[in-house]
């Protein structure tokens, strides 16, 4: 029920709506709950609304942390 998926904004439409690409599927969603989202941004979509924007830099940082932890795990196994 709460599983919301990251989607990329492809176009801004009237009435606070946007067209997004959800894993290859094009869909219209509402941007009424977020500010300043532009074309190319990734947002988390839930029940037809963008809940938040995904921060690309933070995503990179988290992935780097995984790699570091995993390497430490393997290294001394």
């Amino acid at each position, binding site marked *: 029920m709460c599983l919301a998926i990251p989607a990329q904004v492809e176009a801004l439409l009237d009435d606070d709506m946007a067209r997004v690409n959800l894993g290859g599927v094009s869909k219209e969603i509402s941007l009424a709950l977020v500010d300043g989202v532009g074309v190319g941004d990734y947002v988390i979509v839930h029940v037809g609304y963008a809940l938040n924007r995904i921060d690309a830099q933070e995503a990179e940082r*988290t992935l780097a942390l995984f790699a570091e*932890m995993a390497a430490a795990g393997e290294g001394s196994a």
Partner: protein
Amino acid sequence: MKYVDEFRDGTLARGLAESIRRAADTGRDYAFMEFCGGHTHAIFRYGIPALLPDSVRMVHGPGCPVCVLPIGRIDMAIELAARPEVILCSYGDMLRVPGSQRTSLIKAKAAGADVRMVYSCLDALKIAQENPDREVVFFAIGFETTTPPTAAAIRQAGTLGLENFSVFCNHVLTPAAIGNILESPQVRELGSVPLDGFVGPAHVSTVIGSQPYEYFAEEYRKPVVIAGFEPLDVLQAIRMLVDQVNRGEARVENEFSRAVTRDGNPKAKALVAEVFEMRRVFEWRGLGEVPYSALRIKQAYAAFDAERRFDLEPRKGRENPACECPAILRGLKQPQECKLFAKACTPENPLGSCMVSSEGACAAHYTYGRHRAA
């Protein structure tokens, strides 16, 4: 898919699991609750229990909105749907949930009620515009993720001057439920919560932020790590929880920093505050009556409140007394310890809240436990 695939990488998952195994090799046991049904689902779907060392146990929390809605509220929705003028719109997950006497919305629909499955409350608004001579009621359920969309829809209905749209509001609040788990009489009887920390909600936290959990970390000395819904997110969060426990810390940490900030989404929060207010008390399936744990529509938007509009009387459904959900949701028992599990109670015929949707603890054990045994 970007922001999905790279968070499911199998090699990294094994490496993270190994790092957990080393960090947890301290001679003690660890029990962590994942509050969200979304995490429960991910944990079973990706076989995370098999990756974890025996000393780390995951307890599945009440964070599935379909599971926690009490039978009485489902009965009220079915009663609404039975009115000839009403079109009842609902998220698909709710249709099969049994009410009293084995009724459900899907059975009501088969019997002639106009029940429509919608993906979004925007669809319900559209149905109201297209059917001006009918009463369109949106059956709103869910945590802080679905509440802002409902608030937006109510406000939009006001702007559009829609007079045939209303909301049957069942929105509930995550922090109140966490507090209830930590405070329950059962837990007090035993002297302590058998939980060492929480994996905090992913998408709920995108809205409310990480700040509301700080109270639990301080007041109850339980670490909270907010995590995304992908398997690597969950593993990383478990590793962070183990580290905090080992260091004797209880802090709020945010693994899901790509979408969660300390303050959450201010626009969504403001909209919710404009349209909704707290209920003094609300019943949760599996937890019982929880004070200040749910929302209702404010007086200013009373015209859109289905409970007022149709004079709905509160109803009380009866739970099966043998159902162990209250203990399971607090980490005191496992699904297999319930006498009804996989016998009288199955996903096709759920007798308690934890079996109702695939995100519930009993349903997840039933579905994935068998697959693994086979």
